[in-house]
């Protein structure tokens, strides 16, 4: 993996501080950080928890591709990309993406690209546990 990327799938709580420390760079003036957290409701249902599973080997590879694509499109100095697996309670963090760039516009665009693309290509699946049932998110049309 390129040494300016820090890509991890973890079954323990994620740390925004760790992601931010990794991307800090004296040559950069901007860091954008996206944090995805577990909401207490979705589509009008009360959610108790989420459970994430990953095809880890491929998920890490796909996250690396995304980081590289971001670095090809914007002047990314460093990028941290951490995703949690296992059971997550409401309020816990599922994903953190931090990107450092010389100027701010690129940090927003690269970070947004990474989270948008994660949701399309990275083999990670989320099961929602709500009042009265459970469902694999997005599985059906």
């Amino acid at each position: 993996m390129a040494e300016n990327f820090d890509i991890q799938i973890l079954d323990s709580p994620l740390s925004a501080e760790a992601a931010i420390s990794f991307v800090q760079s004296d040559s950069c003036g901007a860091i954008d950080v996206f944090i995805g957290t577990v909401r207490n409701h979705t589509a009008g249902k009360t959610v108790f928890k989420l459970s994430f599973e990953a095809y880890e080997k491929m998920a890490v590879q796909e996250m690396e591709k995304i980081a590289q694509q971001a670095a090809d499109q914007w002047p990314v100095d460093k990028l941290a990309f951490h995703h949690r697996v296992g059971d997550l309670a409401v309020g816990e963090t599922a994903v953190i993406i931090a990107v450092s760039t010389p100027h701010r516009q690129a940090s927003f665009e690269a970070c947004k690209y990474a989270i948008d693309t994660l949701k399309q290509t990275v083999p990670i699946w989320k099961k929602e546990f709500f009042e009265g049932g459970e469902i694999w998110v997005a599985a059906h049309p």
Partner: protein
Amino acid sequence: MKIELLAFGITKDILGGRQVSYEWEGPANVEGLLLSLREKHPQLADLKSLKVAVNSEYAGLDKTIGPQDEVVLIPPVSGG
């Protein structure tokens, strides 16, 4: 062709396990596998999408599958 198939997300529930031995007649490629799977497990046809990864890369329908390949069912992803 007979392989060990890995299934994630909803496909694990439909196939009844993370790793299942799976055998099919017909072409030894992704298309042949998917045709057979959808026939045997009609619920797979109800999914929004169903992709196959061979050796941890997304594979096209004509990708050949051999007994040594790591073959994985990828239902619609929902990370983040």
